[in-house]
Structures are given as structure tokens and as C-alpha cells.
């Protein structure tokens, strides 16, 4: 807000709160925290389901795995687990790297390696599940 004479003039239509929201001192918003929390809520039932599924797969043959993961519900839950797990993982390890890796350069390299590895592992898992279910 700047005043010319005694008439106040508003230079921006955005309030200070509006400008600050989602862009604080960290130059990032609450998106990271929010995604971390939502994926963790999703992972509570999904990981309990995963443990039950893995108990069922003890000593299983490859055909047992195909039968299990080609029915729609287990396949969808497995894909959801993979996406939520790797998203949650890269968000969590990102914070650890930001806390403990000093120096802008090595921090950036570590973060890029982390994100790249998580994307590749997630794609490997997703493609494997889809191949098990659809194209043997």
C-alpha cells in the first residue's frame, strides 16, 4: 500500500496473508507436510493389508502370485500401496537429507538421486504388477 498525498492507494489486490500463504521462509508451502500426512493415512490400512497378503504368499509358487495379483481388488490395492509407499518414502527421506546433508551442491545431488531412485523403483513395481496381471 502506498499513499499519494492523503489518499491511500492499494498497489496489489493480494493481501499479505495471501502472498505469504504457501510461500514462507522455506519458499515452499504446506504441500509437503500435507502429502506426507495424507499418504501416511492411506498407508495405515494398506500396509496392514500388505502384511496379510505377504503372510498368504509364504512359500507361494509364481502361479499363486499371478492368481492373487490378477484379481481386481488385490491388484488395485497393490498399485495404491506402491504409489503411496514411494511417494511417502521420497517425502520422508527428503527431510532427512535436508537436515543432515550440508552444502547446496551435495544436497541437490542427494535429493535428485533420491527422487530418481524412488521414481524408477515405483515404475519397476507398477510394471511388474501390471505384467503379472495382464501379460504373462
Amino acid at each position, binding site marked *: 500500500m502506498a499513499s499519494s498525498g492523503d489518499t491511500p492507494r492499494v498497489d496489489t489486490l493480494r493481501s499479505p496473508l495471501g502472498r505469504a500463504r504457501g510461500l514462507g521462509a522455506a519458499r515452499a508451502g504446506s504441500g509437503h507436510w500435507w502429502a506426507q*500426512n495424507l499418504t*501416511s*493415512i492411506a*498407508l*495405515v490400512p494398506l*500396509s*496392514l493389508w500388505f*502384511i496379510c497378503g505377504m*503372510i*498368504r504368499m*509364504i*512359500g*507361494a509358487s*509364481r502361479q499363486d*502370485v*499371478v492368481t492373487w*495379483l490378477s484379481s481386481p481388488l488385490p491388484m488395485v490395492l497393490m498399485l495404491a500401496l506402491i504409489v503411496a*509407499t*514411494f511417494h511417502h*518414502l521420497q517425502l*520422508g*527421506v527428503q527431510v*532427512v537429507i535436508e537436515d543432515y546433508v550440508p552444502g547446496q551442491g551435495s544436497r541437490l545431488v542427494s535429493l535428485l538421486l533420491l527422487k530418481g531412485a524412488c521414481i524408477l*523403483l515405483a515404475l*519397476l*513395481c507398477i*510394471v*511388474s*504388477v501390471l*505384467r*503379472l496381471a495382464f501379460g504373462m
Partner: protein
Amino acid sequence: MTDARDALMVARNTDGKLVRRPLSPHAMDYRWPLAGLLSGTHRITGLALGVGTLLMTWWLVAAASSDSAFAAVQWFLSSWLGILCLCGWTWTLYQHLFSGIRHLAWNAVYGFEKAEYRVTNWAVIAASGACTVITLIVGFVVW
């Protein structure tokens, strides 16, 4: 007194007598508070589970690849090293899960009082321990 830095540790008491300032104990001399220990455990279990995703990936890729690849991963998982890994990751997952549920409650501003988190400290430890034992018993019975 030979080191100049020691001079900073000397002061006068109210009688004007020169005394050595008291020094707080070294950080490692303090007892670890359980809540702090569990906080660190949450991070370490999270990182360990990240390593565990490699095993999950190996299992899924092997199942999608060939009979021999799947036989290899099943052979590893039934070896003593594989069983040790599975037992360890079972506890790791439960510990991170229950500790994480407590973090979700904290984020919703529940259970932040000292009396409350002292109880939930032990609740998290007991829940993850009990679930690990039950899972391992079921696992070995099924096997």
C-alpha cells in the same frame, strides 16, 4: 592454568573469591528421554523401510520375470538371512506404523501433554512388539 580459554571459566563469587564456573555435564551424560529415543527411532525405521522397498521390488520384478528368478527370491526369503530380514522388517514396519499414527494424532493436536505422551510412548512400543510377535507366530504356523 595454561590455556587462555580456561580464563573464561574463572569468575568471582559474592565473597570476591576466584572460583571455577560450574560446567554442565557432557551431552552424552544425560539420560535419553524415551520420547526423544522414539523420535529418532521413527526416522531410522523410516529409512530402514526405504531399504526394504528394494526387497519388495525384487520380489515383484522376479514374480513378473521368470520361474527361475522367482525361485531365487523365494529361496533367499526362506534362508536364515532372509528370515532374519523379514523378522526385522516386520518389527520395523509396525514400529513406524504405530509411531506414525501417534504423529498423525499429534498433528491433529491430540496427546501433546507430558502425561499423555508418556503413556503413548509405551503404547507404541507395546503395540508394535505385540503385533510383531503375533505376525511372526502366524507366519511360522502358515509356513
